[in-house]
């Protein structure tokens, strides 16, 4: 049986492939390497923070390390993570298409990511960057580290994101199978579609502002440097105009994965298809209007603070709609308990907790105390790690049989999931308390009284790291040695499961005929 994995052979057939599935697998390898690298940086940070003073990193190295952790995790894992891997692999299959609309652009997107990543890593390795992933001016334009090269790398990675976004939008519009109307699209497609809109509209702003930082840094243009007549706050506006929507680039695809997993493993329709689909678009839209909540203490006007505060609350409403709908979907279902479902359960707790603390920090007077403390660090890790990482791993397990034609070991997968969720809570709950206590973020050294909470956090981070490691090893082992998987091991009604396992080069043996919706569990198959 020929499938996309064994249709052609040799390294060349992979590196120059135009098959969206092979490109997705290459993306998977790239983002897994990024995840491991970012994880190593994180562990180095946590180990240094075991003691209040300097232990094995000096302040300069520590500052570079948290920058590297942030840059790698944000731009090379979180943002490309789910869309480029699972979006690439499954979005065409979910709309019944043989490939994405622009297969060559798809390959270009991969190489842009790789080239950008290499430039960034070169900058990090030679010279290092010590500005934090936010590149705040005027520090970033005056820092002596290799800021210009690093932001150039991010600039190129941004193009990868734009190209992928364009590709997905066009694919959804033009390549849907016959009879596949918009309201029959799987919810994952809606989520990726909303994400793609943000990628296309917001990323150019990041690209331009980072380019301005680079010219400021390299040639002293002074666009953001007050000593030359520039404005440092302007950079914050431009930066967050992208980087706040970027948070939704990270979490919306994860929400799409949740919708698929909860329906498949409860054997049930989504409690409300329309609400989940619309709220994805709502988050994408409102996400463009909330950036100012990062700047409550930058000296913004009271009116602006009020406006951005209330707009930020709307994101909470849309997210809450999704959460309630997912919970209601479980009701009267037929629930099969697996590793992806365990990740889903972890996600629900972490996401609601992290999301509600998001409402808390959007409350302007509370944010004044929490801004730039460990509370913020804990909040966005709850959303990003608790939301995106858990769903990335869940997606890895859920779609693993379809992608590689083999089953993973359920027991070890559950061990990994427990390690990730438990370690995560253990690692970041103390950081909320540290923030309340007043410990600022990006601190190489800290006053003694903060030590024991930091030790607790490091212990939790270690468990989290081991959990991720167990999961990845389980999956990599299964990819080569796992038992052969049936076509549809979960009994899902999703269109992607109609394809053979693993899928052939053009996904379906015959053009997909859409006779039912993707969640029609109430009808016999």
């Amino acid at each position, binding site marked *: 049986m020929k499938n996309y994995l064994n249709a052609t052979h040799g390294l060349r057939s992979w590196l120059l492939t135009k098959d969206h599935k092979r490109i997705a697998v290459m993306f998977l390898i790239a983002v897994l390497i990024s995840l491991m690298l970012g994880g190593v940086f994180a562990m180095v940070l946590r180990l240094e923070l075991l003691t209040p003073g300097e232990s094995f990193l000096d302040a300069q190295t520590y500052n570079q390390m948290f920058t590297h952790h942030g840059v790698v995790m944000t731009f090379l894992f979180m943002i490309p993570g789910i869309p480029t891997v699972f979006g690439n692999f499954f979005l065409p299959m979910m709309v019944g298409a043989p490939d994405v609309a622009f297969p060559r652009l798809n390959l270009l997107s991969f190489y842009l990511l790789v080239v950008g990543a290499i430039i960034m890593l070169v900058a990090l390795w030679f010279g290092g960057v010590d500005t934090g992933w936010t590149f705040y001016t005027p520090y970033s334009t005056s820092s002596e580290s290799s800021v210009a090269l690093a932001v150039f790398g991010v600039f190129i990675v941004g193009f990868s994101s734009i190209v992928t976004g364009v590709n997905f939008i066009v694919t959804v519009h033009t390549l849907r199978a016959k009879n596949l109307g918009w309201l029959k699209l799987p919810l994952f497609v809606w989520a990726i579609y909303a994400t793609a809109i943000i990628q296309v509209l917001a990323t150019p702003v990041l690209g331009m502002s980072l380019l301005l930082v680079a010219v400021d840094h390299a040639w002293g243009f002074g666009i953001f440097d007050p000593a030359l*007549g520039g404005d440092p706050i302007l950079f914050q506006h431009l930066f967050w105009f992208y980087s706040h929507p970027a948070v939704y680039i990270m979490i919306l695809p994860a929400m799409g994965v949740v919708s698929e997993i909860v329906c498949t493993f409860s054997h049930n329709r989504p*409690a409300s298809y329309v609400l989940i689909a619309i709220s994805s678009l709502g988050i994408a839209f409102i996400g463009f209007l909330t950036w100012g909540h990062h700047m409550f203490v930058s000296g913004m006007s009271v009116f602006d603070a009020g406006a951005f505060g209330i707009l930020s609350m709307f994101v909470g409403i849309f997210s809450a709609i999704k959460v*309630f709908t997912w919970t209601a979907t479980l009701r009267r279902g037929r629930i099969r308990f697996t590793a992806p479902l365990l990740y889903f359960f972890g996600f629900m707790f972490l996401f*609601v907790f992290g999301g509600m603390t998001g409402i808390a920090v959007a409350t302007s007077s509370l944010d004044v105390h929490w801004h730039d403390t460990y509370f913020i660090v804990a909040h966005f890790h709850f959303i990003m790690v608790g939301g995106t990482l858990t769903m990335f791993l869940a997606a890895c397990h859920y779609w693993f049989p379809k992608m590689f034609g083999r089953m993973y070991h359920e027991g070890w997968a559950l061990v990994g999931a427990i390690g990730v969720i438990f370690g995560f809570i253990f690692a970041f709950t103390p950081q909320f308390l540290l923030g309340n206590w007043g410990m600022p973020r990006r601190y190489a050294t800290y006053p003694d009284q903060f030590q024991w909470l930091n030790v607790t956090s490091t212990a939790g981070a270690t468990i989290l790291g081991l959990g991720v490691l167990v999961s990845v090893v389980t999956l990599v082992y299964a990819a080569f040695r796992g038992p052969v998987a049936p076509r549809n091991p979960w009994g899902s009604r999703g269109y992607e499961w109609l394809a053979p396992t693993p899928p052939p080069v053009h996904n379906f043996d015959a053009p997909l005929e859409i006779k039912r919706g993707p969640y029609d569990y109430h009808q016999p198959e």
Partner: protein
Amino acid sequence: MNELLRKILFLPEQVSTVARDIDHLHFFVIIVTMIGAFGVAVFTLYFIIKYRESAHRGGELPPDARPHRSPAGVPWWVEAGVIAGLFALFLLFWVIGFGQFVRISEPPRDSLTIYVTGKQWMWSFAYPNGAGSNGVLYVPVNRPVKLVLTSRDVIHSFFVPEFRLKQDAVPGRSTQMWFEATRPGRYPIYCTEYCGMAHSTMLGEIVVVSGAEYEQKLGGLEPVRIAGPQVQLPATPGEGRVAELVSLAAVGERVAAEAGCLRCHTVDGTPHIGPTFAGLFGARIPLEDGKTIVADEAYLTSSMMDPAAQLHRGFTAVMPSYQGLLSAPQVGALVEYIRSLQYVPRVDGNVPLPADTGQPVPLVTPLPPVEQQAANPAQAPGARPPLRSEQPAGAGKQPPQIEAPSGVVVPGEGDR
């Protein structure tokens, strides 16, 4: 209850007038968050257990677990009600939080003003009497204190956890925060905006003392050191002699003379190339585009850095930018100097007059010369006395302009 929750949440002591209220909102929001997260988790777990596959004996579904056509059997109005309730809850957070934000954004009018400069990696403070200190800020207890912040290099952020307050110090700009400490003691100041290598050692201390102790402390401090390209450092005092304290406004006067400000800006109220400094501070300034702006610390600072951006109507944009030419402490001293001229009357009755009260003030207040003579601030209702009362030790050394408010027209009286 307050203390218990505060300790559970690891919040530091509440030492400012706003800390307690902010904490109460904090408790409310966090308790709701906990209920939400655990509530969703419990429901999810309950459904996962109740509707588990193995409970479907022999493929038969329990009676209430039949697959259904209506989505999950929840009527639309339940859904709408839940969403509306949630929105009302978030709105309540916002209303309370924004109210508090407004409160912490607007300093009381009788605040004591202290100028704060962040630099890599230290905080410097300049007091109105001309004293200066590094790293340690002395403030009196039970008295509103306004900090006017700026930075000499990169962005810093001034954070006092015990006060629950924080404000960025931005180079080339002036930002402000205010607080009223409620208990004497020593509290840490952290820099919370990453500012380079030694960011985590940019620590300071705020020392809250009684009013009498505060004046005593200030008398013993060194004069503020103004360093900048245009101004010579004060002569080194001889051995065993403490340099004489000069008020910050007097330092500002010297800066104004040496930087050339006084070539275009008068201090006696007569119009010249630029707007007069007399009565400028706190006045509502008409701009070219028809809008108006209050000449506060932020406006004065930004006008030094980018004079054309918000140009006083009727003047031409001939002033060069002083960005990079004036150091942050020099800017602070200049602002304090202009502030000290707040109650000096203007000669031309057609320019706006001070508006440093809560009441709205007409933009242009024509002043017949007779009334101008008759106006006496001491008897005016709601009149604010000159700054003397809020000056700590050294108030006697104020520039003479402050001492002679004979022609001051206070708003409300000068209306007609």
